[in-house]
């Protein structure tokens, strides 16, 4: 019960050392798993292609079952599935992290601006946010992608961010609104600290954990959406792409091949694994930033 252990809690940890952020993070089992998975994907994306041979067309090995030479079997052109996955990782990382950067960046900027600077500018920004917020993202992304039709990671990331920022901007705004009227901000004003100081040194640290977690969920959203767009064939065909793999699994008569299961499940499994890693990572970040848990 809250009131019961308040007295006990208030002073706990008084003489404790401040454990470093990483120690707190690493102590959390989920955070550990999440970090290992995420780092694993970066290794796979950027070092994988240097050590693993590029998949080659081999018409004698069409839809081969898993073997030593092809740990995950082959596709309808006899290309190595694991190679497809590894060589497709870099592009996915690029697109999803750029998209998350754009979406989170716009969200923070608009959220803080509309929360801190009240008046006409703030109201206008919030009205725009409210409108974007109610537009179903996937539909708009699909339509924009259908017109743009480019596979350039920067452009794809831009398309994916069209609506992704709005919910986040709104959440940041409401946090900033309550923070800006808080007593510690008032005290900073009394010490005549600048708006720059108040925004970046007083307010930002308080929304950092939320921002970091939102970044991670944006990566996940961009992952689902970008692979989905390739799966639907809306974005141009490209070699080494998880979405294209899924799309090809359903076409080219592949559904009838006996070993299709592995080929079909491989990209789904890596997407799922990556997402689980990201979610677990967010648990750890929550623990590092959350002052209530940091104390322990």
């Amino acid at each position, binding site marked *: *019960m*809250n*009131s*019961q*252990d*308040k*007295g*006990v809690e*208030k*002073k*706990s*940890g*008084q*003489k*404790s050392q401040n454990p470093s952020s990483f120690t707190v993070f690493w102590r959390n089992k989920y955070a550990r798993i999440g970090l290992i998975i995420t780092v694993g994907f970066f290794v796979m994306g950027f070092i994988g292609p240097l050590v693993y041979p590029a998949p080659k067309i081999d018409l004698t090995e069409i839809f081969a079952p898993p073997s030593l030479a092809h740990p995950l079997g082959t596709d309808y052109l006899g290309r190595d599935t694991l190679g497809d996955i590894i060589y497709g990782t870099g592009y996915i990382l690029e697109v999803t992290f750029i998209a998350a950067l754009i979406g989170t960046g716009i969200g923070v900027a608009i959220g803080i601006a509309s929360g801190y600077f009240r008046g006409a500018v703030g109201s206008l920004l919030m009205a725009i946010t409210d409108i974007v917020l109610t537009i179903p993202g996937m539909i708009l992304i699909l339509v924009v992608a259908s017109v743009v039709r480019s596979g350039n990671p920067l452009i794809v990331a831009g398309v994916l961010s069209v609506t992704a920022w709005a919910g986040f901007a709104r959440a940041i705004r409401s946090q900033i609104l309550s923070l800006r009227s808080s007593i510690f901000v008032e005290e900073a004003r009394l010490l005549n600290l600048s708006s720059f100081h108040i925004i970046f040194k007083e307010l930002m640290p308080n929304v950092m954990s939320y921002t970091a977690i939102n970044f991670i969920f944006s990566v996940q959203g961009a992952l689902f959406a970008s692979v989905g767009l390739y799966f639907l064939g809306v974005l141009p065909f490209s070699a080494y792409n998880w979405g294209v793999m899924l799309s090809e699994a359903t076409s080219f008569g592949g559904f009838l091949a006996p070993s299709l299961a592995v080929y079909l499940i491989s990209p789904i499994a890596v997407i799922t694994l990556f997402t689980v890693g990201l979610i677990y990572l967010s648990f750890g970040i929550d623990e590092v930033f959350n002052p209530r848990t940091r104390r*322990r």
Partner: protein
Amino acid sequence: MNLLLSVEGVRVNYRTERGEITAVRNVSFYVDKGDILGIVGESGSGKSTLAYSVLNYIKPPGKIISGSVKLEGVGDLLKLGKEDVRKVLWKEIAIVPQATQNSMNPTMDVKDHFIDTMAAHGQNDKQKILETANRLLEEVKLDPQIVLSAYPHQLSGGMKQRVLIALSLVFEPKLLILDEPTSALDVVNQRLIMDLLKALHQKMGISIIFITHDIQLIKGFANKVLILYAGKAMELGDVNEVWNTPLNPYTIALLKSIPTLHGDVNSVSGIPGSMPDPYAEITGCPFASRCKFAKPVCFEKDPDFLEYKPGHFSACHFSKDIGDNYG
């Protein structure tokens, strides 16, 4: 017999990631019928935990390690099962918890709170419930017409507190426990609540345990006082006796830290130092490090809680000397 409640050697521990901490250390006290007992303690003294252990309501990671809580006509509450405790709660002992600002269900109106509470103990006659609610709300100076259909967010802090006091009286329990009933309120509402409680006590003869960090609230309200420090009972006795002839150095220091309207300002001062680290193992008296009477024995042996004068208990190796010098 006049004895209503007797608490013996209650010990409550909390398990945390950094080890066990003791929130309440073998505390004993008693309440006679018609008593108003003030339990006074600063933050970290374990006063709320003590109140909840009286109700056998300590949630993990907290645990009642030992002790007994005997209520007249019920027996040892700490030996009862969960369902038996539930039946005692509110009918025999009611508690108005501390954080009253959030103690009511935000999606239920005041009327529903009365209906739910009384139905839980077998009173299902809506007409009777409403009659009771009307009567008690008037008793706490609220307009039942308006308040009964109000939701918690429509009530001010003081009004919520009064609704909860009214709610605590529906079965006229033998004992009413109030956990910091005024600390969230402004001065005006504080006085209103205190006057209200005094009137209710006179009218209904209900026994009250009043928990507070503010020793000044006790004077003129309670007839007995229990003083806690770091989870330990330091002193228990008649309010005036404790005030005028305290037997415990902590009580003496606490009273000395309250400025008065006419006394010499140089004769009052705060207590230096701070509450001991709850994680540190305490050998001896928990107050020893801040106590100006402290001798080597104080750091080695925890003093027992003993009766030095009839009804006047203290935990200090030197209570007898202090009593002789003061008295």
